[in-house]
C-alpha cells in the first residue's frame, strides 16, 4: 500500500501480456508530457486539456453462478480550444501525435464557428493543490484470482445452504485525472476504489438482504462479514406482512440515509437558488443564513475526509477545500462555480460532492430500543424528484424492512413507497448515530438516523 502520488507499480494482471504500457493508468509524467504536447499543437488563443485514464476490473455473480467478468482500460483526452470567447471541446482516445493533432484542429475548427460564450472567464492560471493520498496498490494490482476467491466467500455458503440464492458484484477502479492549459495550469490526481455489493435471497422468494462496502483500499474490505450480514438479513426478512401505509417513525440505516439525504446536494447550487427555482430560493433571494433544519444537522464536504478520499481539484482545476454547507441546521453557503462566483461577488467553492452528514452519539440499537412503534429501513430504491421546489422525492424501501415494536424488531414487513423530502425529515429528527462510508454510490459519509412522521403512501408486493 502506498498513498503517495509517485509512479504506479506494474499492474500484475497485465504483466503476462507484455503490453503493460498500453494498459496501465497514466502517470503524472506521462500526463504532463501528453498535455504539453497537446498545448504545443494549439493555434488557438487559449487551450485546455483534460485527461481521464482508468482501468476497471470487475466480477459478477448471480443465481449462485459466475456470470460476466472483465477488465477495461482506456484513456481519453479532452481538448478545449478558445478564440476570444468562442470555445468548443473535442474528446478522443487516440494518444498518438496524429490523434492529438486531429483533436486540436477539430476543436479549433468548431470553436471558430461557435457563438461567443459570455460566461468564459479565461484560463485558470497555475494553482497549488494539497495532494490527497487516495491510491492503493492493493486495489490497482488486484488479480482475477483475488476476485474469484472473494466471490467464493458468498457463493460457497449459499450453495451449501440450500435455502439461499446470492448475486453480487466486485468492482475495482484505478484512475487518474490530469488537467492543464496554455496559462500554465497543471493538476494530477490518481485514486483507487474497491466496491462490493451482495444480495442474498431466500429460495421461497419472500426474503432479501443487501449489504455493500466500499473503500479506496481493497485490503480493508471484509468479504466474509458481508456474506454473513446479507444472509442473516435475507433470512430475517422472510414472510413479510402488510401493514397500513401512513406516517411512521422510521430508523434509516446509513445506506438509506445516503439514498435520500444526498438529494440535497443538487439544491445547493447557488445559481438555481439565485434564479428562484430551487428549494433554497425565497422571494428576492436565497435562504442562506436561515435555520432550515434541526440544529443537529451539519452537512459538509472535504476531499481529505479520511473515510472518503476525494480529489484535490474540481473539473475546472480549482482547488477543492473543506466546505460546510449546513451547520447546526443553518444554511451556511451555496456552491459557486467560477463564473457565478465572480458574477455574484462570491468565492468559488467547488461542487457539493462527497457529502458528510455529521454523526451523533446514538446507535441503531439505541434508536430501536427507544421506539415504541416504528419501521427500520435497510435501503431505498428508485428515488426520483417529484417536486424540485420542495425536494419531495418518491421511492421505495428494499432488501430488509422491519416493524419495530416496544423497543424491539418485531417482524419483517412488506416494502413501502414514500413521498417525502429530506428537508422535512431532517426537521423531524429523533436521533443520529455514527457516520460511516456508504457504498451505494456517490462517495457519501452518512449516519443512521431516526425521524418521526415519515410519509409512506402505498404498499409494494416486491421482495
Amino acid at each position, binding site marked *: 500500500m502506498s498513498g503517495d502520488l509517485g509512479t504506479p507499480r506494474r499492474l500484475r494482471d497485465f504483466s503476462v501480456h507484455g503490453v503493460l504500457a498500453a494498459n496501465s493508468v497514466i502517470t503524472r509524467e506521462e500526463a504532463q508530457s501528453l498535455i504539453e504536447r497537446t498545448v504545443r499543437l494549439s493555434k488557438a488563443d487559449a487551450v485546455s486539456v483534460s485527461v481521464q485514464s482508468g482501468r476497471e476490473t470487475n466480477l459478477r455473480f448471480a443465481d449462485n453462478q459466475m456470470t460476466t467478468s472483465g477488465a477495461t482500460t482506456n484513456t481519453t483526452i479532452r481538448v478545449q480550444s478558445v478564440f476570444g470567447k468562442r470555445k468548443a471541446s473535442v474528446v478522443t482516445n487516440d494518444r498518438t501525435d496524429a490523434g492529438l493533432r486531429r483533436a486540436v484542429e477539430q476543436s479549433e475548427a468548431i470553436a471558430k464557428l461557435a457563438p461567443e460564450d459570455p460566461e468564459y472567464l479565461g484560463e485558470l492560471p497555475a494553482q497549488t493543490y494539497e495532494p490527497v493520498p487516495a491510491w492503493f496498490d492493493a486495489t490497482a494490482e488486484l488479480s482475477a484470482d483475488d476476485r474469484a476467491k472473494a466471490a467464493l466467500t458468498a457463493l460457497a455458503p449459499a450453495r451449501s445452504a440450500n435455502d439461499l440464492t446470492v448475486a453480487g458484484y466486485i468492482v475495482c477502479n484505478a484512475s487518474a485525472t490530469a488537467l492543464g492549459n496554455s496559462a500554465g495550469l497543471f493538476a494530477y490526481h490518481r485514486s483507487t476504489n474497491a466496491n462490493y455489493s451482495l444480495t442474498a435471497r431466500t429460495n421461497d422468494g419472500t426474503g432479501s438482504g443487501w449489504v455493500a462496502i466500499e473503500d479506496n483500499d481493497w485490503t480493508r474490505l471484509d468479504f466474509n462479514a458481508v456474506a454473513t450480514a446479507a444472509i442473516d438479513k435475507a433470512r430475517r426478512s422472510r414472510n413479510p406482512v402488510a401493514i397500513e401505509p401512513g406516517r411512521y417513525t422510521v430508523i434509516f440505516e446509513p445506506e438509506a440515509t445516503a439514498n435520500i439525504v444526498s438529494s440535497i446536494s443538487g439544491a445547493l447550487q447557488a445559481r438555481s437558488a439565485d434564479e428562484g427555482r430551487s428549494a433554497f430560493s425565497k422571494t428576492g433571494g436565497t435562504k442562506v443564513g436561515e435555520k432550515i433544519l434541526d440544529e443537529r444537522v451539519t452537512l459538509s464536504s472535504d476531499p481529505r475526509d479520511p473515510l472518503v478520499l476525494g480529489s484535490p481539484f474540481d473539473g475546472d482545476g480549482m482547488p477543492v477545500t473543506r466546505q460546510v454547507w449546513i451547520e447546526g441546521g443553518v444554511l451556511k453557503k451555496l456552491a459557486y462555480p467560477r463564473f457565478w462566483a465572480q458574477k455574484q461577488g462570491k468565492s468559488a467553492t467547488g461542487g457539493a460532492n462527497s457529502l458528510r452528514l455529521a454523526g451523533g452519539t446514538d446507535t441503531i440499537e439505541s434508536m430501536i430500543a427507544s421506539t415504541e412503534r416504528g419501521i427500520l429501513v435497510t435501503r431505498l430504491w*428508485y428515488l426520483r424528484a*417529484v417536486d424540485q421546489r420542495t425536494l419531495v422525492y*418518491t421511492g421505495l424501501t428494499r432488501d430488509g424492512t422491519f416493524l419495530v415494536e416496544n423497543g424491539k424488531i418485531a417482524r419483517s414487513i412488506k416494502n413501502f413507497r414514500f413521498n417525502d423530502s429530506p428537508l422535512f425529515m431532517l426537521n423531524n429528527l429523533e436521533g443520529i448515530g455514527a457516520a460511516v462510508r456508504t457504498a451505494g454510490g456517490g462517495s457519501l459519509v452518512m449516519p443512521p438516523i431516526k425521524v418521526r412522521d415519515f410519509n409512506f403512501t402505498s404498499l409494494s408486493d416486491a421482495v
Partner: protein
Amino acid sequence: MTSRRDFLKTSGVSLGALAVGPELLRAAPAFGSHPLLRPLPPVYTDPATRELMMEALDAAKRAGASWADVRIGRNRNNSVNTREQQVTNVVESDTMGCGVRVLVDGCWGFSATQELTKAGVGGAAQEAAAIAKANRVAMDRRVTLAPAPAHPNATWRSAYTIDPFTVSLEDKVGLLLTANAEAQKVRNVRFVNSGLSFVKEERNYANTDGSVITQDYVRSWVTLSVTAQANGEVAVRGPEVVQPAGRGWEYVLEADVVGNAAKWGEEAAEKLTAKPVDVGRYDLILHPSQLFLTIHESLAHPTELDRVMGYEANYAGTSFMAPPEKVLGSLKLGPPMMNLVGNRSEVGALATIGYDDDGVQPDDFHIVKDGILNDFQTTREQAPLLDWWYTKNGQQPRSHGCSYAQSWADVQFQRMPNVSLQPGAQDLSWNDLISATDRGIAMIGRSSYSIDQQRYNAQFGAQLCYEIKGGKIVGQLKDVAYQMRTPDFWNAMDMLGGKSSYEFGGTFNDGKGQPSQANAVSHGCPPVRFKNINVINTGRAL
C-alpha cells in the same frame, strides 16, 4: 507498442482506401457544404478492421477459448447545449477500441483495450481468457449458447438520410437559439434550456462461428425545457418535448422546434395557474409521450429474462413475472385487446439494429399476446432456458437478438429491444378517447417516474395534466401523479387508440447491469384509457 499509424502501415491498407471506407479513420468534419447533397458512403467491413478482429479471435482460441467474439467500435457523440441566448457547451467526442469476450470451459471472460494493434487486441484476448480461467474455481454451471446462423459478410445501416456529423455547428446553434427566442417571447417565461445530442456508432463484430458484421448506427435527440415563473410559482415544460429517434438530422428538422417553441412556452406559462388535483380515482388517458415510459418500466423491464432468472437481483432487481414455468401462457396482464411486441425492426426506433452483439439477426416476438404473457426478451445464453416453452409451442428455440453493449469497452448482456403496444382494431384518436370520457385526466409528456425492483408498484407524473369533464378538456391540473400495481393497472385498460395515433417514445439512457450500461430504446404505442386509477397530489409547502 505499435501506434495506430504503424497498424495502418503493417496492415497494408493505404490511407486512400480507408478514407472511402466505413470511416474507421478519423477525419475532421467538413463544414459549409449542404448536407442534403452528400450521399451516404456504402457500409462495408474495412479489411484492416477485419484483420484485427481475426487476430483477436485467433489469440482467444490459442489461449484456450472454446468460443469467442470481438467488437471493434468507433463511438462518436456530438452535443450542443444552450440556455436563453447563449451556447453553454459544444462537445464532440470520438473514441475507438476493441472488446473481446471468450468462453473457456463454460466460463465467461472479457477484456477491452483502446490499443487497435495486433498486440493490443491479442493482449485483450489473452486477458479475457485469463479472467475466464481464474473464474473456473467459482464456477458451478457451464454457459451454453443457443445455436445461431453465421453471417460471414453482413452489413446494416440505420434509417437516417442526413448524417448529423456533417451538419455545421452554425446550423445546430441557429436552430436552438431561434427556438429559445420563440419560447422567450411568451409572457412569464423566464428560462429556456435546449440541446442537441447525436450519436454515431460504427459497430464491427466477429465471432468464432464465422460471422463478420459491420453496422452504421445513428441516433438523435433534440430537447427543450421552458421554465415559467410568476407570483412565487415555478412551472416547467420539457425537456423531453420531442422524442429521440434512431434517425439523423432530417428528424430534427421534422420536429420543427422553432415552430413549436412558443406553444411549449405557453403550456409552461398556463401551468402557473393550474388547479391542484383533488386526490381520488380517475379515468386516465395517457398520451404516447407519457405512456411509453409506463410500458418501459412496468412491462418491458420485468420481461427481460435475465431479471426473471435473478441475474439482476443485486442491482436493477428481479421480476414479478417469475418463474417462467408458472407465468408463460397463463399470466393475464391485460384485456384481450392488449398485444405487446418485442422487436429491433421498427424503422426509426432506437433499439432497431440489423444484428445484435451475439451476432444474431433479431426477430419480432409477442411478449404479450391477447392479454396473456407469451415470451421473454433473450440472448443466445438465455434462449436455452426456455427450450421447454418453445418446444411446447412448436417453435425452434432461438435467441430474440437482445444482446447489447453500450460500447466496445463494455461486455454485452441482455438489453431491451423496442417493446411496443400494438394499436387497437378501431382507428380511434386522442380526441376520440377524450370525447368518450366523462371524468378523467389526460396526461402528456414524461415526468417523475419510480418503480419497485420487481415492477409491481409504480408512480408516474406527467409534464402536462388536463382535467376532462363531460368529454372535454377544461383546464390544466398540477401536482398530479398516479400510483399503480402493474397487473391491476394494465387490466384496467379499456380503450386503445388506433394505428393513426401510434407514436414512439424513448430514451438514450436506460440503465441496467453492473457495471451500469446505458441502452437506447423506443416504445411505440397509441394513446390508451385506463379506468378508475388512483391519483395522488404531490404538492407540499416548505
